[in-house]
């Protein structure tokens, strides 16, 4: 223990000033400009449960991303094998594996060479010869599959960040969690439903030809012709104004995707005043679009978003210039959001909402006022009790508790920790527990005085003996708080934070700071009796 009272006072004052320094932005509403520029200007960060907002945990369905890759490779492989004149049969994909048959086992060597040269991501997982045919199962190499999954998560994160940025939310937080999860925090969001749609939409835009050679009704009965798929779309019924579902039969082959887009914007149609989304292709996209429309004049081209047909206009003539539009039955907001997701790009895999916690701003405000109110009342009662019970010594302990609050808040601000509603409960608990150290010391001092010691010796013995006890008991409480921090999520973590900081701060205020006061009185003033 440092002997000099002056040095100890200096340390205390320094630490206090430090805490106040970090607290200034929270306490002073209008900071002068030089402060904003050069010094920390972060206020105590309020959790979403206090300021209102939405917390989402998303899971990227990475398996689906692999399936998409496998699908692309399967159709590509089909064309390559035809080009190279290698005979094959029944090429099909189940999940992430591709199955095919080589009727002529002698072509296996040529097949392996193609696989090695053009599809380094794939390997033969299983092969067997049955009745003179070679049955093969291909799979994505494990190492590559891992990379693809990781990439899918990274890309999803980036895409979601883009979408949210364009939606215009202040201070959103988007961060990865674990292997395949993304946490999104949107403070002060007004329309949670719309935000969820915006974030969760895969937004895979595809252009496909309508299969006009076969009948949709026949396909609905279960006879979907090879190379075609059924999809649904919606049509506005003029009489009732309701949306009705319409089935479409499409060619499976995707001619173009949203990846070819350069821009997407909401426009209002001149004729009906309805919003639509105007697409602008990049140069490669424009060339492809010109070729596709040129080859399919008088046929119908379906614009498909996330497997829903938005429109299927008849191509009147070759379209050059790289412009197209998506019309449909949109509201203005829907059209705006669609433009955003198309600009930000498609998610590489669907995302699923695992967890959502949304708190409205009015509830947050209620919680803050109730929290502050209970801190005030609880704190006041404890302070009153200590004063009545320990008189002047109680006043010293009370100053220590107040100092503890300042340090706690200052540390929260300095470490940019988040204050949550359970965090406020933690503060109240800290008030209750912070006096504990002083109770321990004071009870010891009283004991020593009863044993006939002078005030000076009683203070020395009281602090000395109580210190180890305080250390041991606080360390064990800290262990609980640390586990709470490690395993807890969101608001509960906030509780662990305030509890941890509060306990550590109380070791300082209750043991170190209060002793300065006592030492001053028993050493310098040489008082004959302690008011305890």
């Amino acid at each position, binding site marked *: 223990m440092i002997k000099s009272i002056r040095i100890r006072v200096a340390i205390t004052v320094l630490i206090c000033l430090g805490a106040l320094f970090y607290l200034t932005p929270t306490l002073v509403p209008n900071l002068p400009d030089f402060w904003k520029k050069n010094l920390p200007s972060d206020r105590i960060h309020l959790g979403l*449960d206090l300021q209102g907002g939405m917390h989402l945990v998303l*899971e990227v369905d990475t398996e689906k991303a692999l399936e998409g890759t496998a699908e692309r490779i399967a159709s590509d492989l089909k064309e390559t094998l035809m080009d190279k004149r290698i005979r094959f049969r029944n090429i099909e994909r189940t999940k992430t594996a591709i199955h095919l048959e080589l009727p002529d086992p002698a072509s296996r060597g040529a097949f392996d060479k193609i696989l090695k040269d053009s599809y380094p991501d794939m390997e033969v997982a299983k092969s067997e010869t049955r009745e003179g045919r070679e049955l093969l199962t291909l799979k994505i190499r494990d190492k590559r599959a891992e990379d693809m999954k990781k990439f899918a998560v990274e890309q999803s994160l980036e895409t979601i960040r883009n979408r949210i940025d364009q939606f215009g939310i202040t201070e959103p937080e988007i961060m990865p969690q674990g292997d395949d999860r993304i946490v999104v925090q949107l403070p002060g969001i007004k329309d*949670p*439903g719309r935000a*969820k749609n915006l974030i969760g939409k895969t937004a895979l835009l595809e252009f496909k030809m309508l299969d006009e050679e076969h009948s949709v009704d026949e396909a609905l009965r279960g006879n979907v012709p090879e190379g075609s798929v059924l999809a649904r779309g919606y049509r506005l019924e003029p009489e009732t104004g309701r949306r009705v579902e319409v089935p479409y039969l499409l060619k499976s082959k995707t001619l173009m995707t949203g990846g070819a887009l350069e821009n997407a914007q909401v426009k209002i149609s001149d004729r009906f005043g309805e919003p639509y989304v105007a697409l602008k292709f990049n140069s490669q996209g424009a060339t492809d679009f010109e070729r596709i429309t040129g080859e399919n004049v008088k046929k119908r081209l379906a614009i498909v978003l996330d497997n829903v047909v938005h429109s299927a206009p008849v191509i009147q003539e070759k379209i050059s210039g790289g412009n197209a539009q998506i019309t449909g039955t949109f509201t203005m907001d829907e059209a705006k959001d669609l433009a955003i997701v198309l600009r930000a790009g498609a998610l590489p895999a669907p995302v*699923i*909402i695992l*967890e*959502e*916690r*949304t708190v*409205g701003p*009015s*509830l947050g405000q209620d*919680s803050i006022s*109730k*929290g502050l109110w*209970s801190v005030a*009342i*609880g*704190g006041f*009662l*404890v302070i009153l*009790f*200590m004063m009545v*019970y320990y008189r002047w010594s109680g006043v010293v302990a009370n100053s220590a508790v107040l100092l503890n609050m300042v340090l706690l808040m200052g540390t929260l601000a300095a470490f940019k920790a988040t204050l949550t*509603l*359970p965090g406020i*409960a933690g503060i*109240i*608990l800290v008030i*209750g*527990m912070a*006096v*504990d150290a002083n*109770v321990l010391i004071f*009870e010891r001092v*009283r*004991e020593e005085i009863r044993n006939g010691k002078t005030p000076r010796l009683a203070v020395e013995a009281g602090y000395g*003996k109580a210190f*180890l*006890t305080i250390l*041991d*008991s*606080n360390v*064990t*409480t*800290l*262990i*609980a*708080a640390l*586990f*709470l921090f*490690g*395993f*807890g*999520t969101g*608001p*509960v973590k906030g*509780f662990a934070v305030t509890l941890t900081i509060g306990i550590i701060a109380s070791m300082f205020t209750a043991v170190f700071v209060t002793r300065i006061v006592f030492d001053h009185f028993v050493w310098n003033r040489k008082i004959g009796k302690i008011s305890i």
Partner: protein
Amino acid sequence: MELIKAGTKFDFVGKMKIAFGISMALIAVSIASVLWHGGLNYGIDFAGGTIVQIKFKQEPATERIRAALQPIGLEGSIIQQYGENEVVVRVAETLADVKQTSEKIQAALSSALGAESFEIRRVEFVGPKVGQDLTKKALLAIFFSWIGMLVYIAFRFEFRYGVGGILALVHDTIITVGALSLLDKEFDLTIVAALLTIIGYSINDTIIVFDRIRENVRKNIKQDLATVINTSINETLSRTILTSLTVFIVLIALFFLGGAVIHDFAFALIVGIVVGTYSSIFIASPVVLAWERYRPSKIKRK
């Protein structure tokens, strides 16, 4: 002022058997309550599902809300009063379309009661996968905090003190959970936070008694442990009661003023503090004594 006069000589160790009896009875009631309720009443944090907190302009009739939810097939939801003019609708189902549940409830209420008559204040949805994750994390947190403390106490004191301390904690946790179960309170993440706080608080209390025992054992090595324990508990009694009292005061403030979200949390803590204080006096140290009788420590055998 003195609440507990100095020099009390209560025979706590002598009451050990009665205390064990009471504790056993409380634990039995707790376990029976949990079994009788068919397990704990898990909140959505652990069970998964959706809750929507709605504040109405006027006192809402539960039946009207239920009727409004009928068209979307959620009339079987749990509808709870939650403070003034406020209800919480809890939907346990995990439909494929679950992310839209809150929007569906909002739309159904709008069309039945008018969009202006209420405000959605809070929506929480926890998918089954996250529910399992959270359950696992909560159990691990409690379990590891026990182990962490056992190790620390064994290191700072002796192993048998660790055992006494941990048994007291397990005792506190079980009885608090039992009290929550008896009143059919919802068991969610904030309750786990409360349990961990109780664990932290109770061990704190226990350590202070242990610390005094350790000190007194060193002072008179010849005195038998039962007497030392009795003296030590008496010497620290004033502090134990006082600290529990100050914490109790703030918890009462929290319980009445903290609002609905904090209410159950404060309740759990109040139960825990009372039980924790009791166990620090009547359970933790007697366990050390029982352990001593069963297997005397090395110092004594010399």
